[in-house]
């Protein structure tokens, strides 16, 4: 990556009895959404707090759009939006007053208009004049997201952003994240619920016990993990399909009713050939699916599952 918006190099954070983040190096470029994945206690939140400057780093460097945290913290603050894993709001302020507070703090131009935009973007326009204490947890979560979006930061850190959202809210969050990706933002998003991240993350970093287990694009990681589980289904069973599969010497081949599953760690061209053979032999294939290129599978294969 030529010029990453977020560059973390050899970051280390020490707690009294544990190294919370150890030698972490990763980059997030413009238009990238990077999923920071790991079980509880892996160091995801500490990493985000360290990037934002809320947590003291033992060593290492954090750069946001070229601005170093240690030497240019003020410039870094202007370029960075951080949404914590809980929703700190002023209960006695209205949603618009809450946003006004931060718009003033960030010296946002055209404050009123920008506040309206952010409220609209997070579907809170109806709640403009509602007190924060009257908002549900999910609404508060969206309000804090609106606050994070206010100054239009280049880099966004979202710590478990969907944890309080209902299914509809999660879908809408997904849309916002895709919009941010389109807008060229660099987004680092943490979660231990992998289905949340699937679909819009183009890179992923898997952490375990403070260490980075693996990092790369989803495709790279899929390949890196090698073995993927395949699932195939056909319409009529005449035994032919299973025979072809058995002849291919596949690992862990299992017969499922009108279908089969198997593990595969070879060249994908071989898989294509196998599918071609099945079709040419007259097997009516209804499903041909690899489960190894989603985040859940990558995570499970990364070896970071012990703590789950």
């Amino acid at each position, binding site marked *: 990556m030529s010029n990453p918006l977020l560059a973390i190099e050899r970051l*280390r954070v*020490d*707690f*009294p009895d544990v190294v919370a983040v150890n030698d972490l190096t990763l980059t997030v470029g413009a238009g990238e959404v990077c999923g920071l994945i790991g079980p509880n206690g892996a160091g995801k939140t500490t990493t985000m707090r360290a990037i*934002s*400057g*809320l947590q*003291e780093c*033992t*060593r290492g460097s954090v750069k946001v759009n070229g601005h170093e945290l240690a030497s240019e913290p*003020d410039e870094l*603050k*202007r370029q*960075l939006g*951080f949404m*914590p894993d*809980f929703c*700190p*709001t*002023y209960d*006695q*302020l209205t949603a618009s*007053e809450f946003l*006004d*507070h*931060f718009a*003033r*703090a*960030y*010296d946002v131009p055209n404050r009123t208009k920008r506040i309206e935009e952010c409220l609209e973007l997070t579907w809170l326009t109806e709640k403009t004049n509602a007190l924060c204490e009257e908002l549900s947890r999910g609404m508060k979560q969206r309000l804090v997201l609106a*606050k994070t979006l206010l100054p239009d930061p280049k880099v966004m850190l979202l710590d478990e952003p969907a944890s309080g959202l209902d299914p509809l809210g999660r879908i809408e969050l997904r849309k916002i994240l895709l919009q941010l990706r389109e807008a060229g933002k660099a987004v680092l998003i943490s979660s231990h619920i992998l289905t949340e991240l699937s679909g819009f993350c183009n890179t992923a970093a898997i952490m375990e016990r403070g260490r980075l287990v693996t990092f790369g694009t989803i495709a790279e990681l899929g390949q890196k993990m090698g073995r993927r589980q395949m699932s195939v289904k056909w319409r009529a069973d005449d035994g032919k399909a299973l025979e072809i599969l058995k002849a291919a010497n596949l690992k862990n081949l299992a017969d499922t009713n009108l279908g089969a599953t198997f593990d595969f760690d070879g060249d994908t061209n071989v898989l294509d050939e196998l599918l071609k053979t099945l079709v040419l032999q007259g097997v009516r294939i209804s499903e041909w699916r690899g489960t190894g290129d989603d985040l859940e599978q990558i995570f499970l294969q990364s070896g970071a599952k012990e703590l789950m």
Partner: protein
Amino acid sequence: MKLFDNPIFITQKRLVHRGGVLAAALIAGLVGASLLSGLIAYLADPMNFNSFRSSQEAGKMFYGWTIGVEILVLVIGGFSRISRVLGEERKAGLWDSNRLTPLKPCQLVTGYWLGAPLREFYMAAILAAIGLVIVLLGRLPITLWLGSQVLIFSTALFFGLLGVLVGMTFQRPQGGVIFLVAFIFFQFPSFAMPKYMLTNFLLPTYGIANLFRDSGDSGNDYSLQEWRGMPEIFGVPIPPILLSIALQAFVGFFLWRAAVRKTANPFQPPLFRWETVALFGVLLIVQNGLIWGIWRGQFPTAANGGNFFDGQSLLPTVHGGTLLLATVVLAFVSPQPESVRVKALRSGIKDFAAIFPESSVLLALVLTGVAAMVLLSQFAFSFGSSWEIYLVVIGNLLDFVLIYSLLLEFCRLRFRRRALGFVALWLFILCILPFILGGVFSTGAIAKLSLLAPGVIALGDPTNENMNNLLGIVVGHFGIAVVLFIGWQRKWKELLARAV
């Protein structure tokens, strides 16, 4: 950025107004109006009131009550409000959210400092206005109103800064109130010697009482006799209002810097070492300057204590205050072991060179040196005959600060979160228990073993006491410090060994 554009201030103002200010304003108005109506009733028919001999006396009484309520509201109420608001916002995560904005630390501090206690400011303004009417109706000099209001508001600002720092430091919002109660508790002994104790100027009790004393008809305020005239610092008379404001500004300057520094980076100590030494040194110089006129450098031979107090109790009280002040500043500067370990990890230095610059032990030695130089002012012209007293006092101070700083760091290393409890336990055993046992067994010999005793006894009864005996106790205490030093060193080494 102007105060009224400061988002923290604006938000605090919104929160205060949303919480309601009318009821608070009405309460202040009713209290003030009640006092005012009392004065009006007296003025309308003085014969019905036997307690006052003149309108001025009545005016002083009613104005005294008015500012009493004002102090309660503004100083105590404002302090607790600021520390509580900050404590709650820290807990809620709003403090961190604000710290992540491009607002400067000084803007954050100002916003909370002046914004959080707005309700108390409104109430105080109403009381101050009613107070002015009382002063005018009571035919009291306007300087009484002006001087007392300046002092009350400067004290409120001073305590407000203290509230900011307490709110940023204490884990629980109630911590601030405990701090305030402790502060006021330690103020009481100084009422016995008003003109000579620094605390009467830091909290402007002397300044306000002095204004009342010098405002026209003294009436029956005989209890204020000791509060008349100007205090002197090394023989130079200083107006009490000026001294109070100067002291509050000086200490407030360091509180401000500490609050701003903690806002910018909560992981660093609130005071630099030079700031600690300057604060400690200047406060000791002022305190010793205030009592200089009694012995004029010839302690204990040429006592000139005046008529209103027992001069012998003065220097032991100052010694006790010095120990207390050292305790507070060392607690502020004493490092958290974890931060030293992280620094060692960064620098790669893992021997004692990594510890000493960070530890408060070195600072304890410096503070003792500063105190020794300042205390010399009381002994300057009688050193030949009283050097043993001086030696006992300085030895005692050295023992105390060394043991305290070693104990604090040792307990932090050994007991971590439970450290404060163990420090308190050991200080109780070393300082208080000997007095209790001395009382139980009716013998002064055990009481003398207290870590507090040698200096206090040497200064309190310098002619009758055997100084060699006290010196022996001081040496014994130093032995405790040496044992602690060995344990302290071992614990630090264990911690640094983990710095990998």
